[in-house]
């Protein structure tokens, strides 16, 4: 997966990421944490889009489920980070197994629509949770803790925890996508008939990939819940989130894992400055996306890859 000299790019990005809190202002660190979190969710979408050729328009479901699980546990007094994050991961994976088992029976446009439909259903479930504030959502009593060792209430600590989790996930994903499992996924994307003809029941492989992807999005959701100390259907379970994650992947470069993180950074950066100008900032971002698609064939990250290859 990792091309020659891509290491340089990875090291540069890692160095920038590690250095962010050194710039002092907590505002930037908090913004960077958001980038990490959405980058993680976008990477989850990329596993499906870039490697399995599946366009999921429903990842808000897993993102939101992870956020709700984290919020509910914390407010119930379960604050141990490992437990809360693992619960979000497993909970989102289970939901993804169910949604995936049904959605993966379809393909193409139907797959897009059915994943969207499931996510919308969960949005309304979230809205109907009266005990958890319905549409308004609910505030978290506190953030997760790590056995008293780390204090995630500290902006910088929470940033580094998120960054470390992202690094681990990036590493694990790059491993399994290059291993036999990843080969089958890419094979099913390339040629759905041939992959079956050489002996792979591709449905099973896609389902496992869907669950892995869902669990990563769930973890990201749990982190966002902690970052904002707030959980609500809008901003976590709404379909715009699913769309934005896809935009981040496409902006950054599908099928690269790190590209979607770069895409998330660019997307959130523009969202931040453009929304200062107008609340209809998407009106301004739209043309940017168009330029990206028209001018840069494979995405920003692919552009960076080419730049260092010279």
């Amino acid at each position, binding site marked *: 997966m990792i091309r020659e000299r891509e290491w340089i790019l990875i090291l540069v990005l890692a160095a920038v990421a590690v250095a962010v809190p050194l710039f002092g202002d907590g505002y930037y660190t908090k913004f960077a944490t958001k980038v990490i979190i959405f980058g993680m969710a976008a990477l989850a979408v990329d596993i499906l889009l870039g490697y399995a050729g599946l366009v999921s328009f429903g990842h808000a479901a897993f993102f939101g489920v992870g956020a709700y699980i984290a919020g509910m546990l914390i407010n119930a007094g379960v604050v141990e980070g490992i437990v809360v994050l693992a619960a979000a991961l497993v909970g989102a994976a289970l939901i993804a197994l169910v949604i995936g088992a049904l959605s993966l029976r379809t393909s193409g446009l139907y797959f897009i629509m059915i994943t969207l439909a499931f996510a919308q259903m969960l949005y309304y479930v979230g809205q109907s949770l009266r005990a958890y504030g319905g549409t308004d959502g609910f505030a978290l009593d506190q953030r997760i803790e790590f056995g008293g060792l780390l204090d995630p209430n500290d902006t910088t600590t929470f940033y580094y925890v998120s960054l470390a989790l992202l690094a681990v996930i990036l590493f694990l994903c790059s491993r399994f996508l290059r291993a036999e499992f990843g080969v089958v996924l890419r094979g099913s994307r390339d040629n759905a008939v041939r992959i079956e003809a050489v*002996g792979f029941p591709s449905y099973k492989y896609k389902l496992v990939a869907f669950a892995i992807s869902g669990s990563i999005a769930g973890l990201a959701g749990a982190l966002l819940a902690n970052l904002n100390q707030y959980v609500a259907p809008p901003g976590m379970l709404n379909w715009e989130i699913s769309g934005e994650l896809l935009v981040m992947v496409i902006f950054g470069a599908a099928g690269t894992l790190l590209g979607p993180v770069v895409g998330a950074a660019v997307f959130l950066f523009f969202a931040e400055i453009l929304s200062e100008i107008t609340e209809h900032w998407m009106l301004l971002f739209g043309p940017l996306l168009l330029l990206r698609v028209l001018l840069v064939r494979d995405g920003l990250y692919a552009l960076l890859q080419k730049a260092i290859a010279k």
Partner: protein
Amino acid sequence: MTPPPILRIEGLTKRYSGLVVTDDLSLEVEPNELHAIIGPNGAGKTTLIGQLAGQVMPDAGHVWFDGKDVAHASPPERARSGIARSFQITSIFPSFSTEANVAIAIQGRRRHSFRFWRPADRDPKLIDPARELLTSVGLGDRMQTPAAVLSHGEHRLLELAIALAQQPRLLLLDEPMAGLGSEESKELVTFLLTLKGRYTILLVEHDMDAVFALADRISVLAAGRIIATGTPEEIRVDQEVRTAYLGDEMPIAAEGER
């Protein structure tokens, strides 16, 4: 005593909205036989191959492979039981390297691929046999080339290599010579001759020179029915075959009259 047939097709029937494409078809193939199927365009040859490999589900009938009825098994199940096919219209993994196209087929022989850690592209158990096979079909200098950019002739060879990589006990070849020049066709015939006797092969082919050079037996398919089965000699002189299908412009007819 002749060995039991490895493949026994019984009463196989497939209709497409009224059009009977496979019509109560029965056929037996012996182990290590090279059995050719010839017939005019639209006779139902590809549809037959599809029903043997699992891409097409029959409406009725049986496909006994090695004593088991696989007529309704899925393509991966059949692949795992030892049936491999090539496609008339090249069907490969275009974004993979040539080598990876073959390696993934070798990987398909393993019990499963739920392996998440070791890089598959460095696994000598996949790569070494893939390279060996590619060298044997003459693609040895194209291993790292993205499969998408290979020439048509190379695509046909890769198509064959993928099927062979599955180490099939029944090899279904759907027009492996399709679109090849005469020189390339001859080379492919020479290669297929090296497989003869080592594999059970069902060969669909329009190239009559190839068919008569390779086949142990030939079946003639017309409108979904087998109208004759026999040795190349028997088929060459069969009057019904000649009137029903072989026509004057066919090379066999020409050869018979020369």
